[in-house]
């Protein structure tokens, strides 16, 4: 073991010594290009935050800037003066994300495990049945009519919760993760007389933690960023919309902007439209950005496994 780890380290050492000219050139190019791209990745976020603290006047005068010329928290004060819409949107999104991620994760893991069992004779058939849906679909219209006319789920949060529960891609990804667990664990469970479900819950799930973290995060992200099914199935009758759909409405419709600060004694024409959009965006996206540094390694792990095949 020690020999194995020592060799690459030794080799790395020689790379440091034998740094030729081309290596230096490449390093300079990399640092310049990658750093520029990284700045481009962060700058727009920074600009949204900066603009949310600007005054409406300064934006009308000099546009969105990297640093607010006069600092103001007015847009946030407005949002918090009548926080009903925001709190409602948060409650809906957090609820959907928690429930959807937990249920979806359990179902995806269970399916992935069963389909990975070599002694399960129907595994290929069922896998094809699942995979085929990503190759061919009926299209949006029949799906829409099914939900609205046949399942009667218009204006129901179930129309958002259910379709996001699983996807062929997540099941394939889970299967790849389960493959890494030795088959002997299942065998030992069988010898002890445990049923397949018991084996899954007691022996497999505890060994699946990295997979659960990765796939759980993919699921959570899809619920948190959800606006598409909301735009299809939630009409104005629904009082509280998921966060991103709320943001969508604030950006695109003045009417909902009025609603979101209704009763806060501000004349509509004086409304700081631009900064209010930015403040809503900051509040709606904040948690994702704050959590990002802690969770991104799981995403990278997921991509690495998924890239092999899937």
């Amino acid at each position, binding site marked *: 073991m020690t020999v194995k780890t020592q060799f690459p380290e030794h080799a790395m050492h020689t790379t440091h010594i034998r740094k030729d000219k081309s290596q230096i050139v490449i390093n300079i190019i990399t640092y310049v290009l990658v750093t520029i791209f*990284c700045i481009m990745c962060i700058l727009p976020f920074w600009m949204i935050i900066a603009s949310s603290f600007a005054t409406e006047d300064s934006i009308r005068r000099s546009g969105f800037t990297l640093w607010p010329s006069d600092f103001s928290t007015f847009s946030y004060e407005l949002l918090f003066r009548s926080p009903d819409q925001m709190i409602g949107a948060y409650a809906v999104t957090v609820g959907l994300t928690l429930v959807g991620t937990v249920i979806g994760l359990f179902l995806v893991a269970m*399916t992935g495990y069963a389909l990975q069992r070599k002694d399960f004779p129907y595994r290929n058939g069922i896998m094809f049945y699942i995979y085929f849906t990503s190759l061919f679909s009926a299209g949006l219209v029949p799906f829409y009519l099914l939900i609205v006319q046949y399942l009667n789920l218009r204006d129901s949060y179930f129309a958002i919760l259910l379709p996001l529960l699983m996807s062929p891609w997540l099941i394939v990804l889970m299967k790849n993760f389960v493959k890494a667990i030795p088959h002997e664990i299942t065998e030992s469970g069988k010898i002890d007389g445990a049923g397949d479900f018991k084996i899954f819950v007691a022996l497999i799930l505890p060994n699946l933690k990295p997979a659960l973290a990765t796939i759980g995060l993919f699921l959570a992200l899809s619920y948190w960023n959800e606006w598409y099914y909301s735009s299809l199935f939630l009409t104005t009758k629904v009082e509280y919309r998921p966060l991103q759909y709320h943001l969508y409405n604030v950006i695109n419709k003045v009417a909902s902007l009025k609603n979101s600060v209704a009763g806060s004694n501000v004349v509509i024409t004086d409304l700081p439209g631009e900064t209010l959009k930015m403040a809503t965006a900051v509040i709606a996206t904040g948690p994702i950005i704050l959590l990002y540094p802690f969770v991104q390694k799981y995403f990278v792990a997921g991509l690495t496994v998924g890239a092999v095949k899937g």
Partner: protein
Amino acid sequence: MQKAASQKVVNYRKPSVGRTLVQNRTLIFMCLPAILFFLVFSYLPMPGAYIAFTNFQYNKGIFASPFVGLKNFQFLFISGQLGLLLKNTVLYNLAFIIVGNFLQLTFAILLNEVACKGYKKTAQSIMFLPYFISDVLVSLLVYNLINYDYGFISHLVTSLGGTMPKVYQNAGAWPFIIVLVHLWKSTGYGTVVYFAAITGMDSSMMEAAQIDGANAWQRIRYITLPTLKPTVIILFLFAIGGILKGNFGLFYNLVGNNSMLFKTTDIIETYVYRSMMNSFNFSQSSAVGLFQSVVGFFIVLGANAFVKRLDPDYALF
């Protein structure tokens, strides 16, 4: 001894279907939620594709609406609508695939040459960040930069003495904007995938080349790139397989219902969505959708056949 032998014989006899079902009932039950899920959300809507051949009336439902044959398709062909949608969808996807893969590969290879581990990690994390945010926020970021009245770039251009075009009324600018925004959002994701492929590579060849005095360019040209070639080709083929699909969220949030921009920005998915949700034209909308599904299906089959020829291990089925 004899008992064990006879049991062995029993095990080798092919069990009946009923017995296999009973034996595997728990595993079948474990798959049941997924089976039901895809049955309801993917297979049940399939017969509904019939709507593309009807003059759909909402109160009558799909199967009681009058049958009109291929009329919906005919209209879409003759009006040129389908041609425009196809052209936009395919061209955007080609740009995404070609420029996107080039950038992702370049960044992955360059990052691999950097010795500083902290920089590699930080750069990957930052590049990956745009992938995490919703398309709704992306549209706001873009608006922030290029809207005529307040945009950051608009003000920059004006202060440098230039004149900023009114981008949201100018269809010609949008192919560039959409491709740039797509690259911004997806480059980090693809870089991480390629980077994983590079780090998974056998390092002994690299070391041997180094000892033989190959410089960095030679190592990239003769070792890294050839090793990555199969991965690139396979990812490329699968991307081609999805060439009729579109990134609906990005296009719809950036362009929305701004009809001045449709000529250069309308793709199949946005048309399907709008003609259903805004003009309630369910029949034509589903005709376009069905066309996309069927033609797309055959393209995937073709791409898969190619992959299978190159490397059967990577084929989907």
